[in-house]
């Protein structure tokens, strides 16, 4: 297995990781960035590398330019699966079936966030997607032209995603946001203090002209014979149906804390605990962006820069960013508050609604365990919830929201791996082997 040593190693090539790489590369430091995707950019900027056919995005162009110019090396297609001895990460490259090791002096974790799904009857029907998931599919070539799309859930992403889908030729019918208007108004007031964010909001709004944005409403159920046909929504008083081909549905974001947890970084309220200079509780390990709390791209960029500076000992320069970092954090907190989940969306599931898709565990099975004494571990051991290939990455946040159970333990590999990767000679699989294996699966 190949092994290489870097001054600064960064996990995640989204805005936080790119900003960190640009900052840490100053002065000739050797910097590497690992990302599981085929290109840099993270959740929001990854649309083919340097592809600006839609709308030029100034922040993205500036940041991409800085990243490319920095000389940092991007290792794409690498998934970090384990932390070995101190100061060494192990990656797995799925496309080529090879494992590699990366040793570091300083580590910056910029692992981002993922969508939260909440179960409701019919959410597992084909045609129902995570909002971010559908966007990613479209970026990879999934054709939505002419498709009728309903958007639902919560969070500022819904609007952005609806706008993008519209631009890609979909017909967005409506956006149902579970947060009540009253909560969103106070958030909007906070936004007024930040003209830049308002502009982003306005440009979204223009692509969404004519699309109903319904606050205080959420899905009741999705229906269809083998394929989504319609979604029923409610605002708590009234119910209505929307005929559609696709439903894009996500309930805000949850930080990706598996790798930080594996490294032993202290957590707080489901986020990685950092000080004002992005230091985690583990020496030489910094964290930036969404894992420290979901606060959007501006926060990620600032935190990434601060972490990059800290990693190469430019503490004074990093300190100069602290005030702005704190203010962006405040924005994140306001956002969390504005989009906090109402109790009704925690009660959407019926007894037979699947919560854990890997293991087909239903809401009723879990509800039966919810007696105050049981924990995530009981749900896992007794009902197999979170025991499948995703190891609770999908159902974990839902289960935590529904029952308050926190996924207690992260174990390597943090993503499924071929057994050979665990052996002493990880190597390419032979074609005859994989063909034969298909028959078994």
């Amino acid at each position, binding site marked *: 297995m190949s092994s290489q040593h870097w001054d600064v190693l960064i996990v995640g090539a989204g805005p936080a990781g790119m900003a960190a790489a640009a900052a840490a590369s100053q002065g000739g430091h050797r910097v590497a960035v690992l990302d599981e995707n085929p290109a840099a950019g993270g959740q929001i900027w990854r649309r083919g590398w340097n592809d600006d056919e839609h709308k030029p995005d100034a922040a993205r162009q500036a940041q991409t330019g800085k990243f490319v110019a920095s000389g940092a090396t991007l290792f794409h297609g690498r998934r970090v699966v384990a932390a070995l001895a101190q100061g060494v990460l192990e990656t797995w490259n799925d496309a080529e079936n090879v494992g590699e090791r990366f040793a570091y002096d300083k580590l910056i974790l910029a692992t981002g966030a993922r969508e939260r799904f909440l179960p409701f009857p019919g959410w597992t029907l084909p045609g129902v997607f995570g909002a971010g998931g559908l966007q990613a599919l479209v970026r990879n070539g999934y054709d939505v032209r002419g498709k009728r799309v309903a958007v639902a859930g919560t969070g500022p992403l819904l609007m952005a995603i609806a706008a993008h889908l519209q631009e890609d030729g979909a017909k967005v019918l409506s956006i149902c946001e579970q947060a009540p208007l009253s909560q969103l108004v106070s958030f909007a007031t906070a936004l007024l203090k930040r003209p830049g964010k308002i502009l982003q909001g306005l440009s979204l709004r223009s692509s969404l002209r004519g699309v109903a944005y319904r606050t205080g409403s959420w899905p009741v159920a999705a229906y269809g014979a083998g394929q989504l046909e319609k979604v029923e929504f409610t605002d708590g008083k009234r119910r209505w149906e929307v005929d559609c081909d696709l439903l894009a549905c996500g309930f805000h974001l949850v930080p990706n804390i598996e790798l930080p947890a594996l490294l032993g970084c202290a957590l707080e309220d489901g986020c990685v605990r950092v000080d004002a200079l992005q230091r985690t509780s583990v020496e030489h390990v910094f964290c930036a962006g969404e894992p420290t709390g979901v606060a959007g791209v501006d926060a990620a960029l600032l935190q990434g820069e601060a972490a990059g500076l800290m990693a190469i000992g430019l503490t004074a320069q990093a300190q100069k960013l602290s005030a702005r970092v704190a203010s962006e954090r405040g924005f994140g907190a306001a956002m969390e508050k504005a989009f906090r989940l109402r109790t009704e969306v925690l009660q959407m599931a019926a007894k037979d609604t699947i919560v854990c898709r890997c293991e087909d565990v239903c809401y009723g099975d879990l509800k039966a365990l919810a007696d105050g004494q049981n924990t995530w571990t009981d749900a896992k*051991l007794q009902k197999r919830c979170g025991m499948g290939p995703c190891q609770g990455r999908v159902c974990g946040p839902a289960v935590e929201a529904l029952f308050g159970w926190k996924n207690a333990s992260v174990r390597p*590999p943090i993503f499924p791996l071929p057994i050979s990767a665990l052996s002493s000679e990880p190597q390419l699989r032979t074609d005859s082997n994989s063909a034969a294996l298909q028959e078994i699966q």
Partner: protein
Amino acid sequence: MECARAGLRVGVVEPRVPGGAASAAGMGHVVVMDDSPAQLALSRYGRELWQKMRAALPDSVEYEQRGTLWVAADGEEMQEVYAKQATYTSIGVSSQVLDEKALAQAEPELRKGLAGGLLVPEDAVVYPPAAARYFLDEAIALGAKLIRGVRPVEAAKGIVRLQDGSALSAGSIVIATGVDTSLVPWITVQPRKGHLVITDRYPGFVHHQLVELGYLKSAHKLTADSVAFNVQPRQTGQLLIGSSRQYGDAEHDVDNKILKQMIDRACEYMPRIRDLSAIRVWTGFRAATPNKLPLIGPTPDPTVFLAMGFEGLGITNSPAAARLLADHLLQRESAIDRDPFLPAHVFRGESAHA
């Protein structure tokens, strides 16, 4: 469950998760083990009680009579196959010798060129955490009380003191704390670490619980670290791959060196395991006693009894141990000789069957 069924008033104190410690980390292979006459008698009795319970077990326990296939790599191990069969026959456990061809037919994924094996058809596989929960729920249904979330810090003279300052009193206290000897610090139980890997679902890849015969050589060394080929088909179609044994490592962390050895060993016997997808790796601790036998029965404190130190056989032996323990408490006769398991042996520093 045994005590509640015998009409005793039972309280169960569990500081953490019922069935969540070693029982959640083990393989759940119900197997008659012939490493010593006492272990042979206990595990045979354990398996028999599992078989009797079978109809009553809920689906969640996943009881499946898969049978054990002891795999012999060469002629020398084939000699052991015959010796093992003779031992099993002597206590009425049926088994069947497989030659090279029959072995390949029974488990086509094994590499070619293995000498043969011994099939023990009545051995089984269960899912231990659900079994533990079932035993507990049965007891609760008969009136037993579960006291959960608080740790006992002392147990003697009919009193169990809890960490929160409260106390419980009982005529008899049974210590069944697995590898944790904090309530009985005079007992020597060593944690013997094991690694397991669970795969994604591949129904039909493996049919029996497969164990290499070299296992006996490696498992019973008291000191050195060892690995052995040990693969189990789960009801879900997943494979559970073991096994490793290490002393002197009390950390939960995965030890990459021994994990690699273990995986290499599995791939040596079953080459295509390499290409299956692993979804989780974990470790657990077996409670190893100096004489390799569990501790079941009374202690010098007439109110304190032990049921611990089950090493790698605590799932197989659990129903038998519970029965023997209830026999002690109720002064009943037992179906098998319970002397070898008396804690008195280790109090005297005696190593009965070493």
